[in-house]
């Protein structure tokens, strides 16, 4: 019964969010101005909105994702891979949600006059959450016999060339900005810190990619090995690399924006924001994105 309720909330979360939105808006715009007698109605509507918000939040935080199997079946080449993908989709999506929510919340602490820190926090949180979802099986030791393939796994087998090129370009740009900021001895720390954050994101992402590649894999059947390869590809790309690239692009744009005021720099900053948005959209775990990655 509880599971059915949670699944239903999860499936209709968009509708519940709309109900909550109007439940909050309606009392202030329509009901409250009508005077004393309408305050009870306003209180009821606000309570309903609060219940909707809490329900949707609780279901999302509990990691329920009844659509995971369906999405996995749509994109997986076989049922075994589908079972593996479903597990990964549930885990990755949940970690990214918790990370993004926490990051956006922390961003509010620094959002004095604009929303940029919230967006930065959101992207960083999604990337960190996606990376944390892949941190498993580290440090485990077993005494029973164990087996493994002696097939080499390469980073290029799991990360796309576009993402790799983006990471390298961002690193070079960040280095250049750090060098300029240090040489300039500018009183403003922001260019330096933003560029350092971008560079740190690139380095951490690369380290995490390697961690996914060399993560433990016992000897497996051919079909399970193939499914695991695909899952690692999804994890290393969609899971955290693409949100991290989006975050790093925003950091580079922030660093660039503080250097000087000119039309060229403004255009470059806008272009970087657009690229960041594109990478964020590409990181979403939609059927289309998953299919594109699996087929490539």
């Amino acid at each position, binding site marked *: 019964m509880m*599971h059915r309720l*949670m699944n239903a909330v999860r499936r209709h979360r968009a509708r519940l969010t709309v109900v909550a939105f109007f439940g909050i808006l309606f009392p202030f715009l329509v009901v409250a101005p009508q005077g004393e007698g309408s305050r009870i109605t306003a209180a009821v509507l606000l309570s309903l909105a609060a219940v909707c918000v809490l329900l949707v939040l*609780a279901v999302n*935080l*509990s*990691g*329920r994702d009844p659509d995971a199997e369906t999405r996995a079946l749509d994109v997986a080449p076989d049922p*075994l891979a589908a*079972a*593996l993908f479903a*597990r*990964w989709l*549930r*885990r990755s999506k*949940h970690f990214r949600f*918790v990370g993004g*929510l*926490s*990051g956006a*919340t*922390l961003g*509010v*602490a*620094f959002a*004095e006059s604009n929303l940029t820190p919230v967006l930065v926090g959101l992207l960083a949180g999604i990337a960190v959450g996606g990376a944390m979802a892949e941190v*498993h*099986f580290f440090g485990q030791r077993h005494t029973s016999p164990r087996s493994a393939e002696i097939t080499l796994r390469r980073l290029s087998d799991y990360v796309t060339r576009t993402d790799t090129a983006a990471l390298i370009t961002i690193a070079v740009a960040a280095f250049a900005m750090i060098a300029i900021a240090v040489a300039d001895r500018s009183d403003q720390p922001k260019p330096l810190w933003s560029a350092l954050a971008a560079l740190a994101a690139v380095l951490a992402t690369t380290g995490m990619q390697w961690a996914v590649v060399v993560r433990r*894999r*016992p000897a*497996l059947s051919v079909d*399970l090995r193939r499914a*695991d390869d695909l*899952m690692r590809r999804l994890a290393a790309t969609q899971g955290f690399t693409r949100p991290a690239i989006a975050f790093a692009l925003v950091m580079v744009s922030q660093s660039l924006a503080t250097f000087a005021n000119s039309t060229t720099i403004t255009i470059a900053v806008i272009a970087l924001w657009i690229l960041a948005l594109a990478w964020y959209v590409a990181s979403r775990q939609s059927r289309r994105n998953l299919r594109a990655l699996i087929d490539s």
Partner: protein
Amino acid sequence: MTATLEHRRGDRDLEDRLDELIPRSAGPFKTLAVSATVVGVAIAATVLTIGGHLYPRPTFGSSSGSGSNLEVGQARDAVSATVILPNYSNRAVRITGISFGGAGAELVDVGVILEPPNETQSQGEPVIEEQTTQATVPLPRNERGAAPLPVMVPPDRTATIVVWFRPTECVDEPGPWGTVDATIDFGADAFPPFSNTISLTQDPIALVDPDATSVNGGDVLILRNVDGSFIEVSGPLAGACEALR
């Protein structure tokens, strides 16, 4: 073995094999508890940061202002400008350092004046307007009438930072002039021991117009003399030179 048992055993085998590659979910309630804790910690950190508990942030969500009025010091050896530092955080902050930036001028002295507490509205009564005066709380004062550093600023109180400068040039250049930064912490031996340097001049003390004959888009600066009279000046350096002649 029955078909159902075979099927269940097959499912278990599949789950066991998948367990070697990716861990199973911990269950909705445990997951909810852990996730809610993580988000709760983020919310707590945010609230503590906004409230200025983790590191000094007295002016979160507000803009500190700079005074556009200048005043000649009693000794007629310097001109003062004021900026305010309102402490909107929930903790007292200690001002440990003031830095002044203004081309063509040298810093002579700095001091702090603590404004009296705000009178706030109670139920149904009109708001009593804040009286901004030169009255001080019991702080040691220097000969210029302001307390030297360091100064503790309690929560919900406003400190007026006074910077005395002497012009080394008498010609104002177009553009922004006069920045003041304050270094603040929570006090000696306070926890956490973080300090922060904030700018008190999001708007500069004076924005000299391109023609260098007016400020802030055609306006003038008011300079108060020792005898209490007011003169209008076209720029901070030109005005200070004229007043100290």
